[in-house]
């Protein structure tokens, strides 16, 4: 008889426990990271009662791992697609791009060839020159502010990742201490998994929960970021070429080991934005050079050689931070048609100089580096002072667009007439020469006109943006697939919970009935004894 009481009581407690689990599932159906829980019943030894032998947490480590990977990829692709789309919009829009100012400038020169002495026509050329320079400035500033925002975002991401990583380390320590899975431990694990996914999303950290329940969190190359239960210190630093990079405990990490949003931003900062800046600078320099050369070759209305219309950018040199030799360089543009639309890395190794553009294409180097015989490569001319050590290098930005500006000239100062003409000459041959240079192949070895260089730039940026967007679409689809796989295992299905609720409620009611029956039996016996 007491056995009936014991069995009934064990069932009541177990089903109460089961119902509590169901209600936790229902309550957390929309909680991010929550893994569905279920109870596992077991027979009580000897007595025949029931007990909850385990709380199961429906989490699958391989599905979680795949989901984190997919989130990492998606965040990386989206960060890059976002910035590239903005750059694309910027340079392909009529209002912000170079196409319209370049066209207007060309039109004003066309008009100048027809009416070389007309003051209003000359003023239009000056106004369009100012408009072009202003557009270059504005694009350059917008790109700089994109870079600034990217750096800010990186700081935010790294700061947030540090907090998350610290929390993961401390949660894991608690989980390790508990040993068994109970409701509290399950909550900790849910929280840990949310944090790990966040770390994949922000920095592309990889994390693996081993069979024995231990956790391993690493960078993309397998280097652990939680060591002996302690999270490493994350930070940002500059590499040799001045690129912003992740640091762990103060050590620089190569950008390829960083994924997620930070990885995407780094790629944008290291290659996409500099590429846009260099394209912009090269076009500005080409326009400036063309006008200034034409000005110098011609005669203005006062009978003098023309003054420089544009202030052209000059190459900017950045020494590798790890240079050990005493070499210093000064660079100048020697041949604009050979200039690559990217920055150039000049490095000294094995006693010789070598140069590569941003895509890693080798640029042949000639010359010895003296003033009489400068190093020549990629349209640049470089003079050296001091001796370089092996491994030393320099990054040369051929035409920083931010330096591009327009001089304020009077309308009379435009040199439309041929050199040596008299004052007030109605000659237009220098304006015709300018028109021809503007239209002619000036860049890429004499194959590309300035306007076409812009068209190519817009089109290539559009291509990169389109392919980044399609990568992001693919990554989103893959992510949705991976998240579905994860949620199929650990998500909550309310119908299922409702069914469980009914099932356990009925069982609970039945167990209560067992107790009531036992009570009745007990009463019957008592009544029989009293007689």
């Amino acid at each position: 008889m007491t056995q009936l009481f014991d069995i009934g009581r064990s069932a009541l407690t177990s089903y109460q426990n089961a119902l509590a689990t169901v209600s936790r599932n229902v309550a957390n159906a929309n909680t991010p990271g929550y893994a569905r829980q279920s109870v596992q019943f077991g027979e009580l030894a000897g007595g025949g009662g029931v007990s909850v032998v385990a709380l199961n947490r429906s989490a699958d480590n391989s599905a979680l791992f795949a989901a984190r990977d997919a989130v990492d990829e998606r965040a990386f692709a989206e960060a890059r697609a976002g910035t590239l789309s903005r750059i694309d919009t910027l340079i392909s829009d009529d209002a912000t791009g170079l196409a319209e100012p370049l066209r207007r400038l060309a039109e004003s020169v066309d008009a100048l060839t027809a009416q070389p002495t007309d003051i209003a026509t000359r003023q239009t050329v000056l106004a369009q020159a100012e408009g072009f320079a202003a557009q270059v400035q504005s694009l350059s500033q917008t790109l700089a502010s994109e870079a600034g925002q990217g750096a800010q975002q990186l700081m935010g991401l790294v700061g947030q990742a540090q907090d998350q990583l610290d929390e993961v380390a401390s949660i894991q320590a608690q989980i390790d201490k508990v040993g068994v899975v109970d409701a509290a431990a399950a909550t900790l694990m849910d929280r840990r998994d949310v944090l790990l996914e966040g770390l994949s999303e922000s920095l592309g950290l990889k994390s693996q929960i081993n069979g024995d329940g231990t956790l391993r969190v690493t960078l993309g190359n397998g280097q652990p970021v939680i060591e002996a239960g302690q999270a490493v210190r994350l930070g940002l630093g500059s590499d040799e070429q001045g690129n912003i990079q992740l640091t762990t405990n103060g050590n620089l990490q190569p950008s390829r080991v960083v994924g997620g949003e930070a990885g995407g931003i780094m790629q944008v900062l290291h290659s996409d934005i500099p590429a846009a800046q260099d394209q912009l600078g090269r076009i500005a320099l080409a326009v400036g050079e063309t006008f200034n050369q034409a000005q110098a070759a011609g005669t203005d209305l006062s009978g003098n050689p023309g003054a420089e219309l544009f202030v052209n950018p000059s190459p900017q040199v950045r020494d590798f931070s790890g240079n050990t030799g005493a070499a210093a360089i000064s660079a100048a543009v020697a041949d604009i048609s050979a200039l690559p639309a990217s920055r150039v890395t000049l490095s000294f190794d094995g006693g010789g100089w070598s140069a590569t553009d941003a895509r890693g294409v080798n640029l042949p180097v000639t010359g010895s580096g003296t003033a009489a015989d400068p190093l020549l490569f990629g349209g640049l001319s470089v003079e050296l002072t001091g001796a370089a050590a092996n491994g030393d290098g320099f990054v040369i930005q051929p035409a920083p667009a931010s330096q591009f500006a327009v001089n304020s000239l009077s309308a009379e100062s435009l040199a439309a007439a041929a050199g040596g003409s008299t004052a007030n000459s109605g000659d237009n041959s220098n304006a015709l020469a300018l028109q021809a240079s503007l239209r002619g192949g000036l860049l890429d070895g004499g194959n590309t006109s300035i306007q076409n260089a812009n068209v190519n730039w817009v089109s290539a940026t559009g291509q990169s943006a389109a392919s980044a967007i399609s990568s992001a679409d693919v990554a989103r689809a893959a992510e949705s697939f991976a998240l579905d796989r994860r949620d199929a295992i650990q998500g909550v299905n309310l119908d299922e919970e409702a069914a469980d609720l009914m099932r356990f409620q009925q069982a609970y009611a039945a167990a209560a009935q067992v107790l009531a029956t036992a009570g009745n039996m007990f009463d019957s016996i008592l009544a029989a004894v009293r007689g």
Partner: protein
Amino acid sequence: MRITNSMTYRSMLAAMQQRQQGQFEAQQALSTGVKFQHAKDNPIGAAGVLRAENLLATLESRQKNLDLVESKASYAESRLGNLTDTLQSARDLLVRSQTVAINTEDRDLLAEQMRGLAQDVAAIGNTRDADGRPLFGGTSPNLPFSGGAGAWSLDAGMSAPIQVEVASGRSLPAGVDVRAAFRDSSGTVDLATALENMAAEIALSPTDDAGKLARRDALDASLTEMDAMLERTSRARSSAGLTLEAVDVIRDTNEAVKLNANEELTRLRDADVAEEVTKLANESASLDAARAVFQKLQQQSLFDYLR
């Protein structure tokens, strides 16, 4: 596969967002009239659009140049017409001064008229254009004739007119080359001075036979020279006419190129309204369906049956 609530929610949301994106794109295409807004939506098309727009701008400049060439040539043509009339009058004076019965008073009158015509020739030569620059004289900033009656001289800086581009690889002069027309056959005496010299010949009244003979020969020679001057003027005038003819031909060709470029631009850029309207209707219908399904799924729960 076990379907959980978060999966349903996520996939329904993604479906609605995708439909909304499609709807937004179609709406944008319809409201702006262009197929794509930025290069990323169609990189190759965007490059084509930019090239076509650049070509159209160049064509626009060339059409403006044609207008300029036309206005300069027709003004020059009309002024050279005046010059022809003036020289014709001068020729008449020469012929009348050859009459045997002419008296001294008449000679003086004819000579006076001839000097007036010399003034007229200089005035025609010194015509200014609408922009205030000398119409004749090419790139020189100076008026062709200077000095005034009795001391005419021709600007040494006179040149051919400037050439302006009117089609790819084709230029036309913005004006007429009058350097030959404004001088006599020797190339050293300007037209106004030549007429004044003739006036002096007309005014001569020799009394002896030798003098009379000399005057007649001189007037004969002047008449020959006058015909040559008329010939050179008419040649300059017809060169203006040729320029005007060329303007018409090139303008037609440019219009054809422009039409082509515009068609290319339309093909690359302009939205196909029928297509976009269909797309909008499609996307809207799909969005409605997605919303209805979402609502239906959200309503369905076993909990509703638990009483």
